[in-house]
């Protein structure tokens, strides 16, 4: 008889705010076998393209996920614009980039908090989420929504930001920077954190490539996959370098996200400095006819919206390949051989967004 313990991990589990279901088989506390299953959040919203016009569908696409919401809508509208050959006003692309980076900041802070919470570090969780509220305040003040912004539309954005507000935002971010420094310092230098993160869940570079890891998961393993390098939106005019770590463990993935927050602040600063005047919106007529893979970099990695239209108001197909979806195979391999205590840490280290993954 094998000396094993089966633990039904999830779908309801306090360290996973979202339903993910793992059948863990443990020996003592070491995971010897793990089979994931998903589908608890599956709504089937891709099918809604048949019922909603492509312009209304932006709001559905945005609700693929409440954390990556802005970037989902951005990706979607970029795809549509590409197919339709629209030249979006430049100011709108800058604004999209600013909001996109804001989303990244809020997502990373959220993740850092949850990540700390999964290790029982409650006060760091609280601190990270306290800082995140500042980001949300700015988002709310500029877009009207805290987590679901609803400002992207085909052909531009729905709201403009006044130059004064932009300055204020920048000042706010710069003011936050030292607090962010204190926060990331805990993640990167505290020995109790290192004890939990160093050498746990190591994803080798080759494996990351073959398994299809994207985003910080890939960048933590030394793969410089950052779709922002393709220069979508206004990013082509912005100077930045993807953050890459080489150890491939939870610590590296954590470090990537911690450092990316500062990159995001830099990008926002450059955008605010370079943002041109002009309209933020343009009139759109007609309907998309063609297909396109629209790619952007979400907080969790590369997202792909495959959009296929046939000239009618309703699209033929909208398929979203979210970063979490493609990060599941690496996760499955990472979980084997870790301790039970590390399971939530490793699961969270890929920053799973099940809402995204299952759509």
């Amino acid at each position, binding site marked *: 008889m094998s000396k094993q313990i089966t633990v039904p991990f999830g779908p309801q589990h306090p360290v996973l705010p979202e339903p993910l279901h793992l059948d863990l088989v443990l020996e003592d506390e070491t995971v010897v076998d793990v089979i994931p299953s998903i589908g608890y959040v599956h709504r089937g919203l891709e099918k809604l393209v048949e019922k909603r016009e492509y312009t209304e569908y932006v709001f559905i696409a945005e609700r693929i996920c409440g954390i990556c919401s802005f970037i989902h809508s951005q990706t979607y509208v970029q795809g549509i614009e*590409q197919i339709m050959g629209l030249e979006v006003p430049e100011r709108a692309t800058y604004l999209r980039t600013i909001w996109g980076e804001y989303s990244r900041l809020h997502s990373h802070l959220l993740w850092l908090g949850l990540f700390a919470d999964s290790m029982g570090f409650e006060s760091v969780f609280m601190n990270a989420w306290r800082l995140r509220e500042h980001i949300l305040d700015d988002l709310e003040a500029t877009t009207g929504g805290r987590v679901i912004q609803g400002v992207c539309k085909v052909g531009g954005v729905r709201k403009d930001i006044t130059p004064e507000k932009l300055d204020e935002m920048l000042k706010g971010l710069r003011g936050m920077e030292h607090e962010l420094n204190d926060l990331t310092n805990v993640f990167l230098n505290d020995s109790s954190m290192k004890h939990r993160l160093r050498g746990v869940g190591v994803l080798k570079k080759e494996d990351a490539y*073959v*398994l*299809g890891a994207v985003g910080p998961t890939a960048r933590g393993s030394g793969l410089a996959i950052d779709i922002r390098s393709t220069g979508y939106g206004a990013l082509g005019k912005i100077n930045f370098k993807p953050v890459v770590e080489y150890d491939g463990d939870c610590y590296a993935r954590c470090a990537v996200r911690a450092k990316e927050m500062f990159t995001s602040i830099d990008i926002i600063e450059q955008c605010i400095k370079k943002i041109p005047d002009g309209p933020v919106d343009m009139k759109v007529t007609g309907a998309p006819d063609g297909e396109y893979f629209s790619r952007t970099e979400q907080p969790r990695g590369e997202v792909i919206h*495959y959009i296929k239209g046939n000239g009618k108001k309703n699209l*033929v197909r909208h*398929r979203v*390949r979210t970063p979490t979806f*493609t990060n599941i195979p690496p996760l499955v391999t990472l979980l084997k051989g870790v301790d039970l205590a590390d399971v939530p840490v490793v699961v969270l280290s890929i920053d799973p967004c099940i809402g995204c993954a299952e759509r």
Partner: protein
Amino acid sequence: MMAAQVITPIGVGDVVSKAGQAKKDGYRLVQIGCTKIGDDFEIIYVYDKDFTLLSYRITVKEDVVIPSISSEYFGAFVYENEIHDLYGLHVSGINIDFKGTFYKTAIKHPFNVTITKEGDSCQNK
């Protein structure tokens, strides 16, 4: 504006060999997506290397068994299971075969059927 994207049509038989070639050339698997057009199913395999996409398209009928590329790319199982569950297409030789339990949906193979569930245009419920 980004570069135009080319999707190369191939036959079902070439799927695995093309995947092997892509892997050899250092491409990573980006996605496998399916679209139903009329009675046909288009499956697009997308690979990426240095932000350049390499895409292959196969067009099949419902009864065609599609070979899995999970032997080349371990992570392909998520896409292939998804295609099986949402479209009802058969994919043979998946490394982790969920056998239709990847997504448990109210309607079997939802993307393969036209859903008649009436979207109530008015609330009143």
